[in-house]
Each structure stands twice: as structure tokens, then as C-alpha cells.
């Protein structure tokens, strides 16, 4: 009996101490406001927690906080991917954060679904839309209204090994400009030893996937201006057959071996000259800089399918959104304006070697003194390539269409279906989906 009495006493003490613990204090929002004092607290969520990116965003936040005394931005790191699940739950509960970084290919969708706030009322007073690359701005629009402000982006370019070019008699200043040339050059660069490839000239699926090639080949996305799906057409059939031919030529074993080396970053065969050319994002340069500083390489826009079809590339990127239901939208807007303005954007660009959305900042970064010459060369190329770069925001009436196309592409490349058949099946599947959703 004594034992249990002692236990109960301990429990009570524990409970009392616990209730004082931060984790057990419940607060409602008005209390939080009162605590912050006079300043309005803006809740800012991002997934930038790495050693490199976190200090950069924290400094930007810090600078903003110091630059005025009405708003205090509080940055919280929430893990990549899960951050958006959490955001959705918070919106549903009516207590969302005030600024969130989101992928730009879903912004219009979120606008349509009332998850992201319509920013027109702010843009009417401060129209900052011309700060950004037009393609990026367009992606944030749903029915002509913007639901997010572009923050950063990327693109895809072709890296090639100049020394290897010279070695096999190719002009290092004349990289391939068409698919045919790409094949030709790769053939020359290939070095076979028995059944193994000591050097692979090029493989189209290292760094990007088939859908980017189809984008490049068509110069447009899977949906035309009316919103009808364009999955099965001659160009796409040709593209997939072309990719399959590379796969058949090198064989699965060689491809897999090279692929795992690429994934291992430092062991990337491009660095050791065992891979002649590779499509990558411009940030790939940071790896070259760190792991193979003496590599003599060049960067060029993606080859076009045939002359005149366009060097179309693909890009992704992120925007800053204000979730629907935020109580501090005005203040959030102030922060977003700062976040996407020249100073903050240039700082981000230089420190992270990242493509930013603000045109002026991007161009300034390319000439920045903080960037060594080689860096500048690559960055400049990336900025120029923005002209070729298309974004692919998901259509609001068929957001998960890729889930129907991707397995068909897989089947085609595995040889289970012909390109013709696979694409036809994909076409009808997507059409069905669009029908279903339009009801």
C-alpha cells in the first residue's frame, strides 16, 4: 500500500512539472499574438534544412526582419514532401502558416482548389509580375489570377567532355546540335573492350526521363491549347523508339552499371571521362567543381530533334504561396516581395548556385564577383537557356495523368509493348481521365 501511495505522489509531481513544460502548454492564436508584442509574426515554412541552404534562407529572413520593425518572420524547417501534407491539414483546420514554399507545377491546381490564396488584390497595388521570367509567371496563373510568386527554377542542359571530343577527332567547340549529331558523336566517343563499355558516349536517360525528350521533340507539353491530351503522335512514337534504340545498343547491364556510378556522385563517370556527354541541371556544375575541378568541359543547350524543331528544355522550380486562411496575408505579402526581389534573389543565386526567378537578379548573379570565371560561364549559359525552357504545370482537370503515361513508357522501354501501342493506350487512358474529371 505504501508503495502505491508513493507511486501516486510521484505521478502527481511528474504531472505538475509536465504541465509547465513547453510541450504541454496549449495556446490559442490570440495569446501567441500577445506574446510577440507589437510585431506581427509571419509563419514561414520551407524544406531547406541542409547545411548549405538553411543558413542562406535564414540570413534572408534575418535581413528582412532587421530591415523593418513591423513584421517578424519566423522560419520553420519542415521535411521535404511531408511539408505539403502538413500544410494541407493546417489549411483544413483553419490555422495554416502564412508563407509556404511550394512546387510550381501544382500552383494553379492549388489555386483552383482554394488552397493557395489569390494574390490579385496584392498585385493590383504592387505589380511585380514583370520581375520574373514569363514562363515562370504563367505557371502560377489560374484563370488569369496568380496564386504564387516564383522563387527559383532550373533547366536542363547538355554537359560534354571537351578533352574526350578532341581525343576522337571531334571539335570541342562544336557540340552536337541535333539528335542525329548526338548519335553520331556518341558513336565516335564509345570505347568498347570486348563486351564492356570503357567509355559510353551518351545515354539519353541519364539525368532526365523520356517525358523531357518528348517535350524537346514536340516543343510543347502533353496537352494542347484546348486542353486535349496529345500523347500519341508520330513525334512521340519516334522519340520513344529513338530512346529504345539507345537502350538496346548499350544493353541493360552496361546502363545499370553506369547509372549506379552516376548516382554515387563522386564516382560519376562523366568526371573520369568514361561518359562523354550527359544532360543535367546547371547545379551539376557544383559537383564538377567539387569532385573534378580540372575537367575540361563545355555546356550547351539540348540538341533539337531535327533542325528547326527547337532546343526545348524542361524546368521545374518553386514558388512562395500564401495558404488560404492565413491571418497575416498583408504581412506575408511584404515578406514575399522581399524574398523575390533582386537583393535576396541574387544572394540566393550566388550562394546556392541556383537559378532564380527574378530576371535582374539572375543576370546580376551571372556577372557576380563572388563567382569565379568558370562558375560564371555555366551560370550565364543557364540563364540564357531560360528562353528554351518550358514548365509543365499539371492540368487542373487531370492532375495525375502522368501516372497513366509513365507505366506505358516503362512497358515500351522494357520491350513489352511497341511504342505505337503503348502511346495509343496512354492516349486513351488520359482521355478517359479527362472525360471523367470534366463531369
Amino acid at each position: 500500500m505504501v508503495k502505491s501511495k508513493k507511486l501516486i505522489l510521484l505521478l502527481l509531481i511528474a504531472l505538475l512539472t509536465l504541465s509547465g513544460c513547453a510541450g504541454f502548454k496549449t495556446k490559442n492564436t490570440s495569446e501567441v499574438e500577445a506574446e510577440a508584442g507589437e510585431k506581427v509574426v509571419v509563419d514561414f515554412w520551407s524544406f531547406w534544412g541542409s547545411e548549405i541552404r538553411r543558413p542562406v534562407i535564414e540570413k534572408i529572413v534575418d535581413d528582412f526582419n532587421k530591415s523593418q520593425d513591423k513584421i517578424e518572420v519566423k522560419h520553420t524547417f519542415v521535411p521535404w514532401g511531408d511539408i505539403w501534407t502538413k500544410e494541407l491539414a493546417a489549411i483544413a483546420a483553419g490555422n495554416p502558416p502564412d508563407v509556404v514554399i511550394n512546387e510550381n507545377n501544382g500552383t494553379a491546381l492549388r489555386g483552383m482548389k482554394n488552397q493557395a490564396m489569390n494574390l490579385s488584390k496584392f498585385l493590383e497595388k504592387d505589380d511585380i509580375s514583370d520581375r520574373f521570367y514569363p514562363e515562370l509567371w504563367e505557371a502560377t496563373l489560374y484563370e488569369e489570377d496568380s496564386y504564387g510568386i516564383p522563387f527559383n527554377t532550373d533547366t536542363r542542359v547538355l554537359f560534354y567532355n571537351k578533352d574526350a571530343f578532341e581525343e576522337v577527332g571531334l571539335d570541342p567547340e562544336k557540340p552536337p546540335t541535333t539528335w542525329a549529331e548526338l548519335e553520331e558523336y556518341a558513336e565516335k566517343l564509345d570505347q568498347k573492350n570486348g563486351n564492356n563499355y570503357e567509355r559510353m558516349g551518351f545515354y539519353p536517360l541519364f539525368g532526365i526521363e523520356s517525358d523531357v525528350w518528348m517535350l524537346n521533340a514536340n516543343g510543347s507539353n502533353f496537352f494542347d491549347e484546348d486542353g486535349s491530351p496529345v500523347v500519341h503522335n508520330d513525334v512521340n512514337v519516334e522519340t520513344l523508339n529513338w530512346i529504345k534504340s539507345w537502350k538496346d545498343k548499350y544493353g541493360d547491364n552496361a546502363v545499370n552499371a553506369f547509372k549506379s556510378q552516376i548516382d554515387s556522385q563522386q564516382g560519376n563517370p562523366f568526371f573520369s571521362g568514361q561518359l562523354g556527354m550527359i544532360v543535367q541541371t546547371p547545379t551539376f556544375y557544383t559537383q564538377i567543381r567539387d569532385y573534378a575541378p580540372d575537367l575540361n568541359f563545355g555546356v550547351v543547350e539540348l540538341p533539337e530533334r531535327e533542325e528547326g524543331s527547337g532546343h526545348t528544355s524542361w524546368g521545374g522550380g518553386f514558388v512562395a504561396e500564401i495558404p488560404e486562411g492565413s491571418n497575416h496575408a498583408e504581412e506575408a505579402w511584404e515578406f514575399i516581395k522581399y524574398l523575390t526581389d533582386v537583393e535576396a534573389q541574387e544572394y540566393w543565386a550566388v550562394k546556392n548556385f541556383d537559378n532564380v526567378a527574378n530576371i535582374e537578379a539572375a543576370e546580376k548573379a551571372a556577372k557576380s564577383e563572388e563567382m569565379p570565371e568558370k562558375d560564371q560561364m555555366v551560370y550565364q549559359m543557364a540563364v540564357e537557356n531560360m528562353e528554351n525552357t518550358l514548365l509543365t504545370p499539371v492540368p487542373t482537370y487531370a492532375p495525375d495523368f502522368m501516372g497513366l503515361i509513365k507505366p506505358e513508357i516503362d512497358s515500351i522501354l522494357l520491350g513489352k509493348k511497341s511504342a505505337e501501342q503503348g502511346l495509343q493506350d496512354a492516349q486513351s487512358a488520359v482521355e478517359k481521365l479527362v472525360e471523367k474529371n470534366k463531369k
Partner: protein
Amino acid sequence: MNPSTKNKHKAAYFDSTKNRKKVLVSINFVLLAMGSLLILSPVWWMISTSLKTMTEVMQYPPTFFPAEWKWENYIRTWEAAPFTLYTINTVTITILVVAGSVIVNSFIAYGFAKIPFKGKNILFALVLSTMMIPGFVTLIPQYVLFSKLHWVNTYYPLVVPAFFGSAFFIFLLRQFYMTIPNELIEAAKMEGASHFYIWRKIGIPLIKPALATVAIFSFNGVWNDFLGPLLYLNDENLYTLQLGLQVFKGQMSTQWNYLMAGSLLVLLPVIVLFFIFQKYFIQGINLQSGNK
């Protein structure tokens, strides 16, 4: 048969069984040892990755042993985020949840196992049913519920539900309770004992191994819980260990060595506890379990 022959036979019998036993034990040992190697190799992979430099981690072909054993990785991992704070947070939540789980579930399960009452089977079916709903669909409504209670950004949503029972543990303990002979219960009832008394004095002691199992499962569940803390904790100074480990997983690349080191560190307390707690569910292999 005279006694001496009988004894000789007995001796011979036990000798041969002893030998047979020895052989079986050795085979057993060898099998277990080989299996352990298989089981441990991924773990070795984690350990060796945690001790490499990032450069070596990315090396191709991968090395089996780290070239240099970078013990400082562990220190740097710990410093990458406020892990000490996260540990305290996680420990707090865990102790509460485990205590709640063990006590409350053993209470509820006894009711379902040994007390006849109207509607018992239907209610038990209901309990089981709650296990069959995938978590996602209740994720948002539950979040909204907790939000209305102003429990978001506190530990309440993570701790309080544990004090109301969980279907998994109720089911588990009920199975164990049902192996207790009814005669024991009846006898106690004859003497006027309430079920509460029976639960405390008879039920609990007889299913100690199961309770230890629940404690361990529950500990695991909370210690490694990611979704709960992710959803309900907004302030970084309330984050738990699993949440903290996420800093190493970036959008572009993963900080493998630190991630592995962190995962192993987070794992350590669980292993230690398991090792210690083993005696509670392995009550003397050589002794006869008395009460039966």
C-alpha cells in the same frame, strides 16, 4: 528389474538424451549464427556508412570497410541539429505513452477477455474494425479536431490517445488473458473478489511476458513515430528525434553518413532497453512456470 539395472537404464537414457541435446544445441547455435550474419549485414552497412566521409560513401564500387574510421561523424551529426533537446522531448513523450499503453490496455483487454457482458462480441468487433481503417482518411478530420481543441503544436495529440487504449494492444493482451484457466477466476469470484481485484492480483502477474512485449512495441512505436510529430508539432524546439533526422535528407542529395549515424544513435536506447527487458518475457527457461 532390480534397482541397479533400472538405474543403469535410467543413466543410459539420460546420457543419450544429453548427447542428443548437445548436438541439437550446437546445430541450433550454428544456424542462429549464420542467420545473424545475414541479418546483421545491412546493419553493418549502416555502421560502416556512418563512419565514412561523404566522398567515400559515394565511391564506386562501394567499400565494405571505411578507409578511415571517422568517429567524429557522430559528433558532427549530433551537432547538426539540437538533438539533445529532441532526445529529451522524445523521452518525455515516450515514457508517458508507454506507461499509458501498458496500464490502460491491460485493463481494457481483461474486460474483453474474462468478463461476460452484453454486447461484448459486437464491441470487440468494433475494436478490431478500427485497425482496418487506413490512417490517411482520418488524418485530416482528426487534425481539425485536435486543432479545435487547441492541441496543435503541443504534445497532447501524441500522448493523450494512448491513455484510451489501442486496438492492436487490446487484441494482443486479450489473446494472452484468454489462456488463463477460468477455474482460477471462478475460484476468486467465489471468495467475493471483484474483477478489479482479480485483474490486479491474478491477471497481470500471469501475463507479465505479454505486458513486457506491449511495453517494447509501444516504446518502438512512439520512439520511431514520424507522422504524428510531423503533423502536430510546429515549433522546432518541440521536435522529436525522428523528425530531427530529416535534416539530413535533402531535396537534392542525402547526407548519408550523418543520416546513418543519426539513425543508429536514435536506435541505441531501444536496443539497450530490449536487451535489458528480455528477462521479463523469458522467465527462466530452466524453471517450470509455477502457476500453471
